[in-house]
């Protein structure tokens, strides 16, 4: 009896050991640094949510592809009225949610009613305020009416914030997300991983992967070992400092791409002495961007001189507005009445680029007489103190939302920049659909905020993915937050 049991156990062991060899590689384990606080992308700002769910579990009417272009999603086609105020979407048929309920125009209507409701917790609600009405013409046709033209309307519909949810399941999406995407949610072991499995009845082309596991590994050394040991098959964004480990290793491929993350030395424009333009200009002169990029991103960041992504066609290179010049910085400080410099605090969230940039900037500012006290914070505390209560002098943060220059038109935003000229320009920009005119307006705003040195403009965050060399189809750039599994496959 005992012998038989032992034999059975041994055979189970053999089968377990043999399984990975025999099975077609259609599963993937992706290491990501941050665990999402919840899994509902329509109810939270955390990028970590989109990394797991965007275009995998949830889909929008349109989707953003890896070049940043808008592609059909749950809407297979659309027409726009001449004045740009009415969008009519033709929805796909035969689409079902992962709980089996079917998708139709009523779900779209529900999604946007929920998003725009008074008590909505959507992080990007402001992007959709142009919508004045959503009506279901028939089960496969939806019409959006806008109160003003919005040049970014389609792009915004493709964000994770506007994915379509069902009235039956929307309330539980934070813990048990149910969408229409190619992958269905299986389980979430908090503190460890989220497991997704291919959704059989998916309406579109079946992805090559059958199962995907997101493993949450926040420590760089642990991630390095997990990659080297083959415990994870790749990560979308690996710490630049240790990238050299994988660069010349033929078993891995390193994908260096751009993101939408403008990393800035955010400055509290409400507070003395930062309310003084001369002080902000002095700080801009004191920054040595090249050294910060080298030190904090190991050369992978791209210098920016304003709040705009360098790979965007509207981008204007303003990095020379205030070149690194210690003498000029001292002179400006003296003119502003701070000949002996001043002291301030620099609050740093728990991300490597911020902590490293912080130490380097403190050293650079010390040269012109500004002494910075570094205060390291956890995310929750940073969000509350800096972002919500605006209780800070300086902080370092990457703004990862695409095309987010509109935050400079909001005087209540955390850095408190109040310039009626920019506010008017931004309003015109939002209402303009002509491409050339939009570009001119966007560049004018870029120039003004650069000249006003609203914040210290440091660099555009790079995305440095490390993947198993046998994997293909990962996004190199990140035009929108997310790790899209659709095209990822193993090749031998």
């Amino acid at each position, binding site marked *: 009896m005992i012998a038989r049991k032992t034999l059975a156990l041994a055979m189970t062991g053999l089968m377990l050991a043999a399984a990975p060899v025999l099975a077609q590689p259609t599963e993937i384990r992706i290491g990501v640094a941050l665990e999402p606080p919840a899994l509902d992308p329509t109810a939270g700002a955390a990028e970590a949510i989109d990394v797991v769910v965007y275009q995998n579990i949830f889909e929008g009417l349109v989707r953003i592809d890896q070049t940043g272009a808008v592609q059909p999603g749950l809407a297979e086609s659309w027409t726009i009225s001449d004045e740009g105020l009415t969008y009519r979407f033709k929805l796909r048929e035969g689409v079902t949610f992962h709980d089996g309920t079917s998708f139709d125009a009523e779900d779209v209507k529900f999604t946007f009613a929920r998003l725009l409701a008074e008590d909505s917790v959507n992080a990007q609600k402001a992007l959709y305020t142009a919508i004045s009405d959503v009506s279901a013409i028939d089960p496969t046709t939806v019409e959006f009416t806008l109160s003003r033209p919005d040049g970014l309307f389609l792009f915004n519909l493709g964000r994770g914030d506007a994915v379509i949810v069902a009235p039956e399941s929307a309330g539980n999406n934070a813990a048990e997300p149910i969408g229409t995407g190619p992958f269905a949610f299986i389980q979430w072991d908090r503190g460890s991983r989220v497991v997704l499995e291919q959704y059989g009845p998916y309406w579109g082309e079946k992805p090559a992967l059958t199962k995907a596991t997101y493993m949450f590994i926040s420590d760089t050394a642990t991630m*390095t070992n997990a990659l080297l040991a083959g415990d994870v098959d790749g990560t979308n964004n690996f710490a630049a400092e240790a990238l050299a480990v994988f660069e010349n290793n033929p078993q891995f491929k390193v994908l260096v791409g751009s993101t939408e993350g403008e990393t800035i030395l955010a400055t509290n424009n409400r507070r003395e002495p930062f309310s003084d333009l001369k002080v902000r200009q002095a700080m801009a002169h004191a920054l040595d961007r090249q050294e910060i990029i080298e030190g904090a991103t190991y050369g992978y960041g791209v210098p920016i001189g304003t709040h705009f992504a360098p790979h965007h066609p509207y981008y204007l290179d303003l990095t020379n507005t205030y070149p690194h010049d210690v003498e000029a910085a001292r002179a400006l400080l003296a003119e502003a009445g701070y000949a002996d410099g001043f002291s301030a605090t620099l609050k740093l969230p728990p991300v490597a680029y911020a902590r490293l940039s912080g*130490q380097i900037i403190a050293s650079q500012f010390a040269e012109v007489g500004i002494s910075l006290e570094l205060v390291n914070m956890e995310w929750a505390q940073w969000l509350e103190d800096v972002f919500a209560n605006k209780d800070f002098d300086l902080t370092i943060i990457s703004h990862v939302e695409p095309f987010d220059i509109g935050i400079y038109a909001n005087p209540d935003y955390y850095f408190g920049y109040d310039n009626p000229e920019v506010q008017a320009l931004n309003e015109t920009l939002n209402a303009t659909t002509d491409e050339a005119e939009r570009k001119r307006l966007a560049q004018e705003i870029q120039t003004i905020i650069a000249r006003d040195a609203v914040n210290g403009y440091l660099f555009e965050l790079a995305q440095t993915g490390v993947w198993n060399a046998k994997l293909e189809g990962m996004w190199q750039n990140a035009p929108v937050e997310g790790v899209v599994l659709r095209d990822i496959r193993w090749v031998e």
Partner: protein
Amino acid sequence: MMRKLARQHPSLAIGLLAAGIFALLGLVSLWWTPYPIDQIAISRRFLGPGWAHWLGTDHLGRDMLSLVMSGMLTSFVVASLGVLIGVGIGVPLGLAAVAWGGAVEWLVLRFSDLTFAFPAVIVAILIATLAGPGATNATIAIGIFNIPVFARVARGGALAIATQDYVAAARLAGLGRATIAARHLLPNIMSLLIVQGTIQLSLGILAEAGLSYIGLGTQPPATSLGLMLRDAQSLFLIHPSLSLIPGLTIVLVVIALNIAGDGLRDAMDPRLRHQGLSHGAG
């Protein structure tokens, strides 16, 4: 004198000398380091050991020797203050337990059991949650962890002394309990306390490094050996010397202090060798 010490107690001499050199290096960093430790120069980072930088430079181009010196100071200061807190509160508690006995003794023992139940790291996490991370809070956490250690050592030593005839004589002469504890018990357990202090100093240095390593101790731009390890850990495969230098320094300091502690114990009271002092680890 030194030569005699080296002949009679070689381990004590070696341990004291090594620990003294390390402490001196730390002290010197108050006035002088080869390079200022807050001077960041990315262009010269990851330099190997050489003439300009004896131990090389770190990921921000700071001189490793300067960082080690300054980190050593942090380690010694935090650990010594931790010992002072432990002695200052623990010893009076231990002596009181012996002098008064009864309910006082019961209270002191239960209190030290309770504190022993929480390792230094847990206490530090608690303090860091309440007051934020920092060197001061690490000091307090290590100090709290030291209190029951010294209370027990003081009580253990004093119990043996309390049965001596001269203590009884002092009591007959009308001296109060507190006076007896201070005049007769304390001087006689001094050697015990000094030896235990050396051991706790080395444990304190380890604890400070551990707390800084997990981010609860010293915060940048100040530096400590544990913080250097923390900064270097993701770079270990590329630049191992950044981890090895602070790591080896911690090992050497702790070994030096332990050798010195053992030597002190032998030198002060050979009988203690057989009793064996508790090396209670955090």
